[in-house]
């Protein structure tokens, strides 16, 4: 894999990660809480 392709792939992954974290933050504003990451009561936490 050439360095140019690696750079493009890495930047796509970074963009996807940034998008996912942003969407998650927006969803949290609508439904604040830890998102089930600390075992506290959440809207939907399937065990």
């Amino acid at each position, binding site marked *: 894999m*050439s360095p140019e392709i690696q750079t493009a792939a*890495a930047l796509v992954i970074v963009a996807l990660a940034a998008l996912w*974290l942003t969407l998650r933050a927006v969803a949290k*504003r609508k439904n*604040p*809480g*830890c998102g089930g990451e600390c075992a*506290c009561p959440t809207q939907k936490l399937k065990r």
Partner: protein
Amino acid sequence: MSLPAHIASASASPGTRLPTYALVGNPNCGKSTLFNALTGMKQKVGNYPGVTVEKKVGTTFSQHGQPITVIDLPGAYSLAARSPDEAVTRDVLLGRRADTQQPDRILCIIDATNLERNLYLVHQILDLGRPVIVVLNMMDLAEKAGLNIRAARLEHELGVPVIPCEAVRGKGLVELRVAMSRHDLPLSRHAWEVPAPISAAVAELQASLTRNDLKSPLIARAEALLLLTDQDSIRVAGSTPLSPQTAEILQGWKTKWEGQGTDWAAVLVNSRYDAIGRIAADVVLRAGDQGPTTSDKIDAVVTHPVWGWVTLGAVMTLLFLSIFTFAEYPMNWIDDHMASLGDWVKGAMPPGDLRDLVTDGAIAGVGGVIIFLPQILILFFFIGLLESTGYMARAAFIMDRLMSKVGLNGKSFIPLLSSYACAIPGIMATRTIEEPKDRLVTILVAPLMSCSARLPVYLLMIAALLPGDRVPTWSKVGLMLLMYMLGTVGAFAFAWLFKRTLLKGAPPLMIMELPPYRLPAVRDVAFHMFERAWIFVRRAGTVILGISIILWFLSAYPKAPDTATPTEQIAQSFAGRAGHLIEPAIRPLGFDWQIGIGLITSFAAREVFVSTMSVVFNAGSDDADTAPLRQALLAAHWPDGRRLFTPLVCLTLMVFYVFAMQCVSTVVVVRRETNSWRWPLFQIGYMTGTAWVVCFLVFQVGRALGY
């Protein structure tokens, strides 16, 4: 254990819809243990809309294998609610919540060692006229306490099935499932004569509730009795309000009674207690004076004014000693495998950004956090063990002496204790505190208790501060205990300050029940431990992975010329520039811009500091081997060649994380709980300000002393 006759004769016909059961009982009656035993892993946890009270719904199976829905309602001593939790239980049972279907049937759990007290709630529930099954839990403990509970006699008195049970050992569950499978559960024969002067009020309110609030006659009667006891003042979101007609009738009767000068509400409550007393006297046979029970003998030591503290200290020391001792081997195993994985990727891929992202971003970031999984498992194993045996309530009792001295409400203990795991459930648990000022004080200081997210930071810093195998484990344990104590003392000190300045109030009172000691429920402890482990792993694989990827980008871009060293690369990157921006503010604390990057990113969550350090100190590395983070930190230097992570800097960093408000989720929850941005902003200000001042003192004094 033989089946009671009226249960043994009953059977459900397969294929018919089975009813929904509500599980109700006093706190500490073994309700959660029974719920877990009945439903196993088939549970859903959520919130009642608009109110931060946990809603647990699970599925169990009838004797014919058909699914039965079980709703685990919050523990309550009475339907006359005194907290939002109890209000939800009352509202679900009375059909006041539009978001939750009124349960068809009710499972009432009774602690057999406290029959009379537990019967008060059962007595109120029988008023509802719904089919009820009474579960007499902890029969073994009652027997040990010299109590002979005549279940058949109680069944005769109440007219509903009574199942003796030991939920911890799974005894009585078969009989319970058989009873739950029945289609023809008998309604209670419980006849309770309401005092004559009150019966007219009950009848008028019942009629109005039936007509105007569309309640069934029996539910309406039960609700009328509740309304007349004047303890129905707590209303929570989602609770249907009374119709104006019923509210007017209620007010009319209360005004009339006030004019008569007789406390008819108290008469109503007392008449219920009299009825319960008669039942209890008939059902419970006491085998004379048994002398002190085993629990009493243990309590003489563990709740002793001096030995109680010694015991608490010993338990905490044992906990942290185990964390360091038992976790060492699995941690080394994870460390080695993460390093091998990184090396393998470096060998398998040609040099380039994608390879760097995988090794220096994803593997270094996630691996840096996941290495602490064994210690998290041990921590929650011990917490589960202490809860399951009943010691946690004793710890609360011991701590209350100290808490009342700083003006904290006794009910603050559970929220503060929960905050050792995570401040968010701790802050949510403050809803049980009735006094608003006490609740706010608890919310403000809860994040000072050292949560599990701080653990990776402490462990990393202790490893850097006390490196090598020759350092005795006791030193590490002592340092860890010191951090936990510092957070606790800080929380108490600020509570004392707030109660005397911003939030003055009357000294609080605490009434607390000490459950008998029991053997730990291994299943529950394991369930709790693996639940926490899964949450930790999931977080590492999602949020921390995402942040690590972004961090890699911020530390790898913009690119420096090819001739630049790794240090020069990160220094001119986006992350490096942010770190340099805050360096003047943190330099007096002994921190450089690289640590500054960690302080900025860990505002998302404290443990992100560890993954940030992994990314920052591995970024741009062209080494064939990925050095463990601890070694990388020890090798880090200031530009003038001085060591960056000196023991004093490591200690100062730990102190910073004890006090600083580094958790955006907690900020959001505090905003929601206080319904204002004022308090979370105040909290960020006072906590981070304290962190800076204390760190400044620690670092400058330490340096002046030659450390």
